[in-house]
Each structure stands twice: as C-alpha cells, then as structure tokens.
C-alpha cells in the first residue's frame, strides 16, 4: 500500500492566502489542540516546562522577509503537509504505515503499525512529518480526517480545525481536483502556487501570493487619480481655505 494510487477521486487540500495571514498562530495551536486528542492522539510535548521544550506539531508558522528596502515585505508563512500527489514519503515507508488515500488523496500515517523509523520524514522536502518522541510514531497533518467527514459534528463545522479557527480567513479547504470548487477558483484568480514544484512531488495545497503593494482596485484608482491632483504648496493656502470655507452652510 506504500505504492501510490494511480489517481485519487478527489484532491482535498488547503489553500493559504499569504496576503492575509498575519502570523497569529491560531492554525498552529488549534491544530495541536484538535489533534492531540484526535486521530493522532497524543501529540506529545517533551520537556514542556524546561530548558528545551519540543513537541509534535502538525502545522507551523514561519516568518520571512523578502527583498530589500522599500520593496521588501514581511511574510507569515504557515506550513503543514501538502498532501502531495507523488510523494516519496509514502513510497519509502517500509511498513505501509504511510499511505495516500484513494478516495480523497489525504496522506496519512497509520499510527498502529508505524515503527517510527523516520525515513518518511527524511523523504519529505517540506518538513511536514513530525516524529512523536514519546509516542514513538510519525505524525502528520491528517487534513483533520476525523473532522471533515465526522457525522457527529454539525455540517458547517466539518472543516479542518485550522481552517475553522483562522481569524483572518486566510485558510480555505476543499477539492483542488475539481476546477469548479471555491478553492480551485481562488487559486485560478490569484495565481495560487504549490511549494517547490521543481521538486516534483506535486503538492496539492496551494498558496495565494501576497498581492504586490497597491495592486488592489481601490488603491490603484486612488493613487492614479489623486497623484496628479496634489496641488503645489503655495503661500496663500490659508486665505484660499478661508474663502472656500466661507460658503454659506446651514446646519
């Protein structure tokens, strides 16, 4: 089963809008909270109150600076498993614990047979696999498989925990294999991209790039029109203002 399916019926994944993400860490902690008691339970924490705490997290938020000076940007950058279409993290697994689901493309680890050899984590270029030192098995983003189909949860909440929590709405979930899905459309509209496509694992998750400054509609029109409208400074400003303000104005 470590052999990858020829194709999957759906390509479920996440779309993350880097133009909106403020780096608040809600997706990271809500993921930890859901999953520490969910399918992957527990996500252990080593030395939680000591000098060198580290725990298993399925979603982490990086921050980067890009470019220099005026044109530079700060970008907050959440990263979890991208549920690649052709990932070696599945094929290298000696036990079959790591697999890609035929029905939806979710890449999962079966925590009951994983031997914790960590090879899959070596094969993942995205750092999306987290070994749980205390539990002895590999953990990873499950796309909240125990939420998205969970009939005991109200339908509107059958979303990954991180998507449900994200306060800015920077995360969306859906079928990226269906060009008509909302996520696919957003990707098409905004030039969404996959990470390190050059590598060839065909990641499913997509990132929407930060908009280049002032590219949005309101501001371009604003800038264009008003730039020429800026009058040059001139000494009589106060008289002109008063004359103008002197128009009869009733209340």
């Amino acid at each position, binding site marked *: 089963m470590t052999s990858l399916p020829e194709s999957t019926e759906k390509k479920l994944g996440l779309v993350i809008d880097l133009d909106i993400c*403020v780096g608040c*860490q809600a997706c990271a902690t809500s993921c930890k*909270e859901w999953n520490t008691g969910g399918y992957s339970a527990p996500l252990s*924490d080593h030395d939680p109150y000591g*000098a060198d705490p580290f725990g298993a997290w399925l979603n982490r938020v990086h921050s980067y600076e890009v470019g220099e000076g005026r044109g*530079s940007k700060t970008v907050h950058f959440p990263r979890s498993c991208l549920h690649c279409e052709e990932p070696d993290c599945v094929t290298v697994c000696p036990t079959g614990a790591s697999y890609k689901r035929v029905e939806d493309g979710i890449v999962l680890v079966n925590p009951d047979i994983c031997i914790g050899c960590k090879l899959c984590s070596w094969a993942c270029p995205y750092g999306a696999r987290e070994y749980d030192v205390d539990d002895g098995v590999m953990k990873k983003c499950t796309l909240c498989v125990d939420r998205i189909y969970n009939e005991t949860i109200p339908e509107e909440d059958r979303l990954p925990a991180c998507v449900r929590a994200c306060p800015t709405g920077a995360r969306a979930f859906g079928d990226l294999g269906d060009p008509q899905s909302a996520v696919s459309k957003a990707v098409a509209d905004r030039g969404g991209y996959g990470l390190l496509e050059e590598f060839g694992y065909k990641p499913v998750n997509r990132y929407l790039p930060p908009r280049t400054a002032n590219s949005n509609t*309101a501001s371009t029109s604003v800038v264009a*029109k008003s730039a020429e409208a800026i009058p040059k400074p001139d000494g009589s400003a106060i008289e002109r203002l008063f004359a103008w303000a002197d128009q009869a104005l009733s209340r």
Partner: protein
Amino acid sequence: MPNQPVIDVNAPVGDNVAKTTCYMCACRCGIDVHLRDGKVRYIEGNRDHPVNQGVLCGKGSAGIMQHYSPARLRAPMKRVGPRGSGEFEEISWEEALSLATGWLGDVRKADPKRLAFFTGRDQSQSLTGLWAMQYGTPNFAAHGGFCSVNMAAGGLYTFGGAFWEFGDPDWELTKYFMLFGVAEDHASNPIKIGIGHLKGRGAKVVSVNPVRTGYNAVADEWVGIRPGTDGLFVGALIHELFRNQKIDLDYLVRYTNAPWLVIQDPGAADDGLFARGEDGEPIVFDKATGDFGSSMDVGTTPALTGVRKLADGRTARPVFELMAERFLSDEYSPEAVSSQTGVDAEQTRRIAAELAEVAFEQEVVLDQPWTDWAGRRHEKMIGRPVSMHAMRGVSAHSNGFQTCRMIHILQILLGSIDCPGGFRYKPPYPKQAPPWLLPHGALEDIRPDEPLGGPHLGFPLGPQHLLLDGDRPSRIDKGFTWDAPMSSHGLMHMVINNAAKKDPYGIEVLFMYMANMAWNSSMNVPGTLNNLTAKDDDGRYVIPKIIYSDAYYSEMVPYADLILPDTTYLERWDCISLLDRPISTAEMAADSIRHPVVKPDRDVRGFQEVLIDLGARLSLPAFTNEDGSPKYAGGYPDYMVNHERKPGIGPLAGWRGADGSKTGQGAPNPKQLERYIENGAFFAHELKPEQAYFKHANRDYLDWAVAMGFRMEPRPTIFQLYCEPVQAFRLAAEGHGLRQPPETHRERIRKHFDPLPFWYPPFEESMVKEGAYPLHAITQRPMHMYHSWGSQNAWLRQITTANRLYIHRSLGAKIGVVDDDWVWLRSHQGRVKCQVRLMDGVNPDTVWTWNAIGKRRGAWGLSDDSPESNQGFLLNHLISELLPEGGGGYRYSNSDPITGQAAWFDLRVAIEKADGIAETEPLFEATETGGLPPSPTELSYGAEFKGDRR
C-alpha cells in the same frame, strides 16, 4: 479501498459541549468547550458570538494548557519567609478571609485611604470599583493608566468614543484603512476578522508603525515611522487636507464645535474658553442673521471663519480658524516634519491625497432614511469610507493624548466618524464628550467606615475637579493632581513607588488583583522589587501588608503576604457588563458571562466571589442586608442577577424583568443566568438599521440609549475639535482661578495643555543627553501570548521560548553583530543583555522586542534553566517610572502630562556588542515556588482520548 485501513472518522468530539467565554485574553470571545469525561477535549469558537463569529485565536486555541497549567495556585497561602523569597504555607479559606477581614477592617476604621486596591487585567471593574467605593478608599484603579488612558481620554474628550475597544472601523464598508501603532490590541479576533475582510475586498490598508510584522506585514503600504512622531505625521496629513480644501465642511458645521467662538483675550481668566450665551451654551456667528446664535440652534448658518466682536467688545474666533492656522503653519508641512518622522514628504502628500480621494470621490451611500437629533429626516446615509484605528503605539508615549486627539480630528475633518465606511461607535458609546462623570475621592470625602460619594474615575472639566486638598493629593497614585490632571484611569504604575516613598502618604494594605506588578507591568523592575521589600527603621515593611489574588504562580506572588488563589476561566462565574468594558459591536449592544464548565480540583475560589464575601464580612453597605447578613448569599451569580446599580439597571442587560422580557432596564430576573447559558453565555441586542450610523446625532439611537440607561438625555454628542477643559487647566497655570499648579508645574502645564492638539517631543527623548541614547526601544505584543500568562502554557511557550531584540540590518552591520549575537542595551535607567535578530522591516532608529516573554526564575512552573529566564529579557528593567530630574529638581512620573498614561515607548537606548557568557543580565535569583509540585517533564495530553480511533 483495497488495503487501506478503515478508520473511524466519526469519533464524537466529546460527551458534552459547554458554551462560555474565553479569557486567554481580554477580547472575550465566545467558546464552545468540548468536554470528555470531565476533561477538556477541545475548544473552538462559538459561531453565533458577536465578538469572534466562530473563529479563535492562537491563545484561545491553547486554552487546555492554560487550564491545566502546573503553575496554578492550589490553596490560599500565607507568607512564611521574607518577602520575595517565595516561602509560603497553605492555609484554609476561613483563615485567609479572616486575616484579610482583620487587616482591611482595621484600616477602614482608622483611615480608609490607607488601603490601595488596584486591579490589573480586570474585567469586572464595575464590581471591583463598587467594592472600593463602598470601602471608602480613594485609591482604586485598574490597569488603564499604564495601558491606554491616552486613547480612552483622547477619544472621550474629543468625540465621546474611543479607539481601543469602544469603536471599530466599518469593516464591511471601509475602503481606506489606516492603522497606527497596533500589534494586537484588545479586540484581538475582531481586528483579525476585519483585516481579513478588508484585504479580501481589496480595500487599502495603510500601516503606520516602526515595525512591519503581523497586521503591519499585510498592510498594502507600510509607513515605518520613527516612534513618538505620529503627531507630526498626522499633523502633516491635516495640513495637506486644509491646503487642498479636502475637508467635510458640512459635517464640521453639523456635528462639531468648529464654528464655536473662542474668546481671544490673552491674559484674561477666560481667554481661550468658549464664548457662551445667556443659557450657557457656546455661541456661533450666524451668517444668515449676521448675529450670534446658540451652538445648539439648528436654524443657524454658522460661520467657520471670521474674527467677531463679542457684546463685551472682546474678540472671538471660530475653532475652525484657529485649527486651520495651526495646521496650515509651515511647522506641519510634509517637508518640515519629514526629518523627524522619517517619512518622506512625497509619501505623506500622497497618503493625504488618497484619503481625500476615497472620502470625497468614493463616498458610500446607503438607502437608509434616518432622523437626526433635531428631528430632521435624512433620506440617505452618506458615508466617507475612510477609517482609522490606533492603539498603544500612539498611547504609550508622553505625547499620546494630543496625538490621539489629532488622529480623531483627522477622521472628523474627513467626515468619517460613525458614518458608513467610517469609524463606528460600539454601544454604550458614544457618551457625551467628555462623559458626564466626575472623579470622586477628595480628601474631605474620605471618612472612617463610610463609603465614598461616587465612583473613583471620571473626566474633570477643570482644576475644580482635581482631587487635591491644597497641594496634597488625595490619591496614592497622584491621579487627578497637577502631575496628571485628566488621569481618567489612575496611574497604577506609580502606586508601589509612591507607597514606598510615602509620597503623598504611607499606606497600610496594598490589595492587588490580576497584575504582575513585580515584573512585566512595572517600570524599573529592580526598583519596584526594592520598594516591595523596603523596610522602615523599626524593621516593618514600608508597605506593611500585601494581599494579592492571582490564579497562577506569577512573579508577583512571592511579594505578597496573603494569596487569594483564583480559579481558571473555565471554573468560574464572570460578568462582562455594559457597565464596564462591554463586548458590543457597532451593530449591537452585547454582554456576556462566564460560568463554571469544569469543577476546580483545588481549593480555589473565584476572586469576585471572594470580594463579595469580604464585602459582607466588612459590612460594606452594598454587600450587606439591614440585619447585617450577607446581601449576596449566593455569591457572584447572586450578585450578577440581583445587584442593581440604579433601579432596573444591573450588571447584565439581557432578559431582565421578572419574566425575562425586558432589555437594558428591568427588574432582576431569577432565571437570567439560565437564559444566558441557553443563549451561549451572551446577550446581544441588534440595533435597527436606522440607528446604526451617526449615533452621536441619531435620534432613534439616542432615545434607545436613554432607554437602555447608557445616556441621561438624548442630546447629541458634539465633537470637540477644541477641548475646553484642557484650556481650563492651562488658564490655571497662567495664574487664574483659585486652584493653581505649584511653580514646578506651571510651565509644563502651560506648554502641554493646548486645547488644540499639537506635537511635542516625548519627554525622555528631550531630557536625556543628546546623542547618548540614539535609539528608540519599544515592545510589541506577540499575538500568541497574553502578557506574562503565556509562558506557563506548554504549547504557547514553544512558539516563543525566549525573545530576541530585533534591530535593523544596517544597525547590525554598524555594531558588527549577526543573528543571535549578544548585545548590551543601555538606557538612563540601567542595562540589559540580550540576543539580537536582524531585520529589514523596522525603522532604522528603532529596536524592539516581544513584550513580557522574559521571566524570572522560580515563577510560572518553569525550570530554573528555562530560556525565558536565562536568554529571554524584559525591556522593563530599562524603563524608568520617573523622568530624569528636570528644572526645579522635580522628577515627574514617566507619563503623559495630561492623562498620566505610562510612557513605555518613550524609552531611548544605546546598543553595543557584548562578550562573555551567553546569558541575559540582569539575572534575578530564583524564588521558591511556594510548595507547588514540580512540573511534569513530559506531556501526552489527549492520550486518554485515543481509545476510539478505530
């Protein structure tokens, strides 16, 4: 599927969901707490809740680890070692309460002001304030004085509302949004939701902030301003608007005091006050009649310009003229300010032009008729879709009050307060500008065993309202004195310092709640620790008794004599009241409760519960029946339901009246709390569309606000471009009136109490030796940590285990450091050693760090070698609570001269590369941990829920 394991995707989340209110921070979102076998399985946002609409932030989502923190206090404790040692003995509640009652009772009998009761991250100020009032001490305030009083006072004196949490941009309609000095703010989730909407809609977001992270990172334009100079930048924007005649004259005439006439008679006792008619109302010059008219007469056509001769022969000029003169002066031209602000003139001019363009060429028109306060019907609501929000980047400077006023004035000039697309009030705001509420606690009001005449905190209109007896301050923090005349939230940051110096007097009991004053909420931490442990000649502590309520083993705990351990937020009743800091949105008035969803497994009690108990034990009238029995035998829930501030008005506004049918005013309803719980722990009353905008002048809204008890009468709120109370203080400094400032204070008041906002350099910057401290040092709140609380949270602390000092890459190159190198940072107060991180997105003259990550060894259940205490650092060690000695030898508090707001961000520093061991300095010795058991070395939370995987 062949070969794929079958997994159970239908495992129920928990066996029970309880809806309550988050308190991982003061935003107070609605949460659904999923419980399994009595343990917390998962916390998610309540979709119906007005505050968070279902989302949950990084802190809220880590609630489990807060609730099960190893630093939770377990039982009341009595200090047994010396103060600061952390040696305690656990005692019973009965012993704790009788001890407290004894101490407090003695003081109340002798001299109630010898109790100072100050609360930190308090959300129950209507109760704590009432308690202090009943006790009779003038010494009460919450954290507002070091937090945001510049924003509160700046806004309330100007337009009866405020940034902070009393108003919001119109997230749905704004097209141009300016954010000044905000990293996170109290409205944590609402701002995030709002920014998401703005960006999604393609509105433009402009951030004015020395640092480009978080919200400022997603802004479409970043203005990397030099700290403390926002007043110049905003002044230049106003300059440009005036110069280009891009202001909403109509709006100014209708809603502001722009046409009001100001007496121009230098040297006279009423110079700079409004010229008033016989009815006491300010007057305007009516162009229609060519005569003076009342400012409240809607029939006039008031002149905005022109020098007028008053009946007594003196001259008067309209506010508008004075204001235009100020901001059109060359001092505020974009070119003139640019070297100070670091913002180039071209950028400033363009932003001003964009503001004008959006406000006037892209107006939003809602087909929504409404009626103004004078009864006139308007067919449409016309909006200027420009809005602004500002917080501590403006507030925490000693020029913050004036700068805050300037930002509001910018919004007002654009006509964008409470219009579609503009800045919107949240009920119960707007209040009058300023609110009709005076401070209480003058010395003559303080009597043994008697309550105070009224609430402590208010809005003085002039020297007559100061709490002074001659030159003697009545309050221990010197609030409402010449040091800080309009200190509407008190000066919590001065309490310990003043008490230890017995200036203005010594106290007997310091009673604190939820404030980590021995660490991150103090300026000059080492000095504060000395003050807390200072002894008199007789060997008695100068502050003889300290009672403290905390829920966790914070740095403050070891410095108290008696600890009243609080519950966690999932274990207690709480009341988030419209009488306090409500959770309303611009569309609805709302309040909420917290109720116990998990049973405490320790001997702890909710602080409010304890306070009510103490109130009864002390026989405070509001907490005691005629027969001396406790009035709220049922504790806090009993109080929440049955307490009435005025007949019909209580802590909670929803489901009042015996049958629960009344809103706002109505008799207590015994089933009120049940109704709240049924509704998800909150109550929300939606405004009608015709009430939703122009609330300051909207008759339907004003009438409703009166009915709800928010306002006394349906008079409109008139925006005070010109702030007369400020002038009243200045006149005193110029030698008028019965109450005048002492010589030491005259010049300072004369200079800074300008009724029209202006910019002046922050104090520290102008007082330290030029060039000696060339850099600004500021802090930001990390979105995933709430002050000091976050570090005990096993999940949150992994995200930031130690803070770095972020510096510009050019500065790094200059002093020869790379990422993670150690540097010394020095101020006039002291020095700290810390590790740097280089970045591009910071003003080159500024260094910054995350607030409150540095911890003291011994606290928070962390091991002594934790990075928080050994690599992390606190900037507070460098921040002095007093300014350097100025002329006259007086050391003012490091605060805004008007409001007393602590000027955290005025800090100036020098930096140099450090050698030696890779460890922070100063490194305080570890305290004992009060007998708390050691923290676990491994956590597998949730393993117990694993059973049903397949």
